[in-house]
């Protein structure tokens, strides 16, 4: 089994979108698409599943809210219920308005930061990570679609040339 792939390079996002649709219609499996900027609707055209990052963020927010509530309930109410300026420390609800700013901020803090970390982990991003860039031009002004070769190589090359690619390369992938 060869691990040859086709790199079809485009210089316009509209042409890319059309090419993606044609490729999907022709039932070629798209391995990856590299673009210099977000192309609106590309994920839909490629048929990618929607992200669940927002659901994660919601759960992280709940965790943050729980942390804030537990923290302040323990410190201010259970552990050392002092009278500070006449604020009622008999129960959590008695003094809750004073805790709300912290509850809010920790909810946002947890939701935001944990979501970002989740994003980094899921998209495998970290400092000193080796960049996976098949062609340096894709960070500037070119769009690249990578399609695995199963079957007739020449047929595939001519197919991608017909989709408006400015360049079609057959690459050995390691």
């Amino acid at each position, binding site marked *: 089994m060869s691990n040859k792939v086709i790199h079809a390079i485009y210089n316009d996002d509209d042409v890319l979108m059309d090419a993606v649709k044609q490729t999907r219609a022709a039932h070629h499996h798209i391995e990856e698409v590299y673009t210099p900027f977000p192309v609106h609707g590309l994920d839909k055209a490629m048929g990618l599943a929607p992200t669940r990052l927002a659901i994660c963020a919601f759960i992280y927010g709940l965790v943050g809210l729980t942390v804030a509530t537990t923290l302040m309930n323990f410190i201010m109410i259970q552990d050392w219920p002092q009278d500070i300026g006449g604020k009622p420390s008999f129960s959590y609800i008695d003094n809750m*308005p*004073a805790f*709300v700013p912290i509850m809010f901020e920790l909810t946002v803090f947890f939701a935001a930061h944990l979501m970002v970390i989740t994003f980094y982990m899921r998209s495998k991003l970290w400092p000193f990570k080796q960049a996976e860039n098949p062609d340096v031009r894709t960070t500037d002004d070119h769009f690249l679609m990578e399609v695995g070769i199963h079957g007739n190589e020449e047929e595939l090359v001519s197919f991608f040339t017909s989709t408006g690619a400015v360049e079609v390369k057959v690459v050995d992938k390691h």
Partner: protein
Amino acid sequence: MYTFSSKLKTFSFILMILGLVGIGIGFMAAPKTIEDVEKILANSHHEGNHSAAPAHGEVVHAIEEGKDAVEHGETKVSDSVVTTLAAHADASVNNVDSSSVHADVSHDVVAEPAAHSDNHDAHATADAHSHDDHTAHLEHVLHQLQNKPWAALYVACIFFMLISVGVLAFYAIQYAAQAGWSPILFRVMEGITAYLLPGSIIFFLFLVITGAHVFEGNHLFVWMNPDVINPEHADFDKLIFNKKGWLNVVRFLVTAAIFLAVWNWVRFKFRQNSIAQDTATDNAPYKRNFKLAAFFLVFFIVSESIMSWDWIMSVDPHWYSTLFGWYVFASFFVSGITVIAMITLYLKSKGYLEHVNTSHIHDLAKFMFGISIFWTYLWFSQFMLIWYSNIPEEVTYYVTRIEHYKLPFFGMLALNFIFPLLILINTDFKRLTWIVVMAGIVILFGHYIDFFNMIMPATVGDQWFIGIPEISSLMFFLGLFIFIVFSALTKAPIEPKGNPFIEESKHFHY
């Protein structure tokens, strides 16, 4: 063109007629004299004797008696130098004990008369004084009960009028921001703002008859009573007297007239230009509306702030809050957006808004969600700052609300914040008709309760109840609102033409 369905028209008439009947009943049922109040109170007292509440009252009374005794004991004791601290403590402990025994006894129905006669003996000399107190109390309750149908009418009246003002502000923002998604909904918004004219006429008449003191039982605005600014009178109120430069009926009515006139004029011009744009060959009417929107938004934010002091905050003339105007604005702004969403969904379901898609609904639902949270932010900022500093002169506002309006006061937080927060946070939910309609009903009810909480504690106090006068007033204005809004929708094509953003709006997709 939209045709007003006859079913909806009948429904609105039924609401108006039932509402009017109920409002009438509310005014009939209000007590006329102190004797009526005495009867009402006696009845409620009789019923209450079986419940725990009066017993609790008795306990409080008994404890207060005990405290009195302790204080008396202390003054006596302090004369004698020999008394040790321990003895002093003992005495007060004894006293507290006896008062708790007293309290326990008063739970017992048989022992109650004994406790009462005890009180009478102790305060025999104060009897005459307490009689005066009793009369003053009855008069206080009389005014509250007489206010009930008035306040119910006022809350419903201002609520529906401000919904149309909120929609007008939203409409102006869409013009000023040159929004590309909303022009398809402009006719719906214009339909809702059509309620502004009749709504504000009724509202202004209400203010006039209140200010001119046409009806004896209308005590909504305490500061309108000439006695309170008369230094010779027993009801003289120094705080209100000092504010009489602002709180006087002439200034109040003139300001109200100017604001309502300008809002209505702006609404009229908006509509005129919008209709003219349908057949115009250039964008001149649109540009006029753009400039008008810019003017209106500046005027609106100033007038809105002032109107919130006048029409809502001044029912509590001893109390003030600096962010009150914003708070009121957020409340009726979110209600207005909710009404736009609900009427759009209704018209869409009847097949009138061909080009409105789920993305438009999604945008409106996002506004409902966002402004609900903005409202909560202002509610909490106002509440928390006052709660935290706990300055007696301003905290009474919340003390009365938490004491007598616990359920509506905290309940509206669930309706206006927690419910929309959890329901409208989901992107898919914001596109579902039934979710948006359900959230809309909850938000509108919640904001009615919000206005109820703003007006009622100062006007009817602990005599509040959501009964016939309140529900009937709501029904009457709802019927009127439906009738006028849907009548206005029949007067122009339901989808505007010629607006420079209309094509974008038709193809809006999120």
